């Protein structure tokens, strides 16, 4: 039965795309969760919806729309002046909220302008694994390689800025530049994830593997590896279940992620309470 899965070209493409996206979304999500920038990540994914809808309306590939909208928005958010060193994300959330509302409104407009019946609307918002072309898989791969190389190159300064911006900047780390670069990479990662899970469900691959990994280990290197492993597991599990059950892929990936996160959180709470009982003086 599983063999049949791999003989279908669209399914092979979906699995390849899912794997690529999960490998990028894992570590990007790990830093996003660490930096408490989930709201920014969500917005960067949401703007990919008007991007894709606008591209369809203009008659070009929605893949371009996804990346252009998310990366451009990341640049806008990164350009918002922040108060002073050490003061984290003060103005950011209001600006991000405004961007998100406007993006959704633009998306609705583009769908309206397109006029005809846009049957991919649900797919744009909630994901699909049908009709991912060979060319799209190659674009996903190319962007993924660029994002991962850039992330690896700035990994340690990024960790420093995320945990302790005041000390990092005193040590000469260009905090503002690193934070801006991270947002742009996050835009690219969110655009990638949107193409599998849809614009509204990117957290299935961007937050759930990362948050689960952080529950499981406080070691940064191990956490990054775990978030990739978990992300690929969620993506494959979700795609296979969606294939056999006909449930939407956004739902299946998200459900697997929820179960894993709940299990990890519960398991850690249990482990900590037993340790506390054991170490309690008699």
């Amino acid at each position, binding site marked *: 039965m599983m063999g049949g899965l791999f003989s279908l070209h669209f399914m092979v493409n979906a699995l390849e795309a899912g794997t690529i996206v999960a490998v990028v979304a894992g570590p990007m999500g790990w830093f996003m969760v660490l930096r408490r920038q989930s709201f920014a990540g969500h917005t960067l994914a949401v703007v990919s919806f008007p991007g894709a809808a606008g591209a369809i309306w203009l008659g070009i590939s929605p893949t371009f729309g996804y990346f252009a909208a998310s990366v451009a928005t990341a640049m806008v958010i990164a350009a918002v002046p922040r108060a002073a060193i050490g003061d984290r994300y003060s103005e950011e959330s209001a600006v991000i909220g405004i961007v998100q509302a406007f993006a959704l409104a633009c998306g609705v407009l583009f769908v309206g302008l397109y006029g005809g019946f846009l049957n991919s609307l649900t797919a744009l918002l909630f994901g699909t694994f049908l009709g991912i072309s060979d060319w799209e898989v190659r674009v996903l791969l190319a962007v993924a390689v660029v994002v991962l190389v850039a992330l690896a190159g700035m990994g340690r300064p990024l*960790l420093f800025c995320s*945990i*302790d911006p005041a*000390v990092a900047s005193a040590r*000469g780390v260009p905090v503002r530049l690193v934070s801006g670069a991270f947002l742009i990479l996050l835009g690219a990662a969110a655009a990638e994830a949107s193409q599998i899970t849809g614009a509204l469900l990117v957290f299935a691959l961007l937050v759930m593997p990362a948050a689960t990994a952080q529950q499981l280990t*406080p070691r*940064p290197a191990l956490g990054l590896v775990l978030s990739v492993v978990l992300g690929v597991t969620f993506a494959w599990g979700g795609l296979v279940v969606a294939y056999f059950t006909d449930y939407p892929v956004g739902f299946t990936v998200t459900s697997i992620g929820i179960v894993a996160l709940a299990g990890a959180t519960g398991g850690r709470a249990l482990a900590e309470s037993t340790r506390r009982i054991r170490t309690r003086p008699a």
Partner: protein
Amino acid sequence: MAQAPALSFEKAAVSLGGKTIWSDVTLSVATGEFVAVLGPNGVGKSTLVKAALGLYPLSAGRAVVLGRPPGDAGRDIGYLPQRRSFDPHLRVRGVDIVRLGADGHRFGMGLPVGSRRRAGRRLDRARVEEVIELVGAGDYAGRPIGQVSGGEQQRLLIAQALVRKPALLLLDEPLDSLDLPNQAAVSGLISRICLQQGVTVVMVAHDVNPILSALDSVVYIARGGAVSGKPTEVITSSNLSRLYETPVEVLRTSDGRLVVVGQPEAPAHHYDRHTGLPR
């Protein structure tokens, strides 16, 4: 004094957002000294530290830090900013936080390829273990930093500041938000580091008493300028009355503690404790 001072300000002033925080500050900290920066809330003690780091430019006068202009000596300075504490949900180990002091500024893949890289990594790792041992944080360095106590976090951060063997430690209220036993332990640790490691320590403090016996000198800033020198010479009724521009009395208790009486309550201008900017 044969050796050049580790830190000196000459008629220095800092203005932020068009507002002068302090001006006409002249002080000198000799190499190897343990110095406290004292003064009322909101007077710009943190600003002094940030000016020494080069994070805020001087609007007048000049400053020399380790023989260089502020900002150029960043790698030889260990810095501990003022803070309350880490987010309790931050799931990163203490040892990783300390390690950032060693390699957190380094861009690049950092793959352990090549023998020099591997050797450098081993050295870093050994040094991280050494400073964790030095501050006595071995028992809890493997736990997520958000889950250890305030005093333990402070020790780990001191370890982080020490990793690269700095010549100068700038500590911004490291005793703030610690209970009394922890205040005594952490201040004891800081003076021991100053003596044994030969590091110059400049520490912003709220209360001079926990560190009084260990100090070489103090810098007292108020809105009327700054005075520096031996603690007992600086913290006097006449000096503080002049600095506060109002009559102030300094009393000495039988066990040697200093009590400042009659100083004005919180100043009329409020500054953000963390940024030093007017609120």
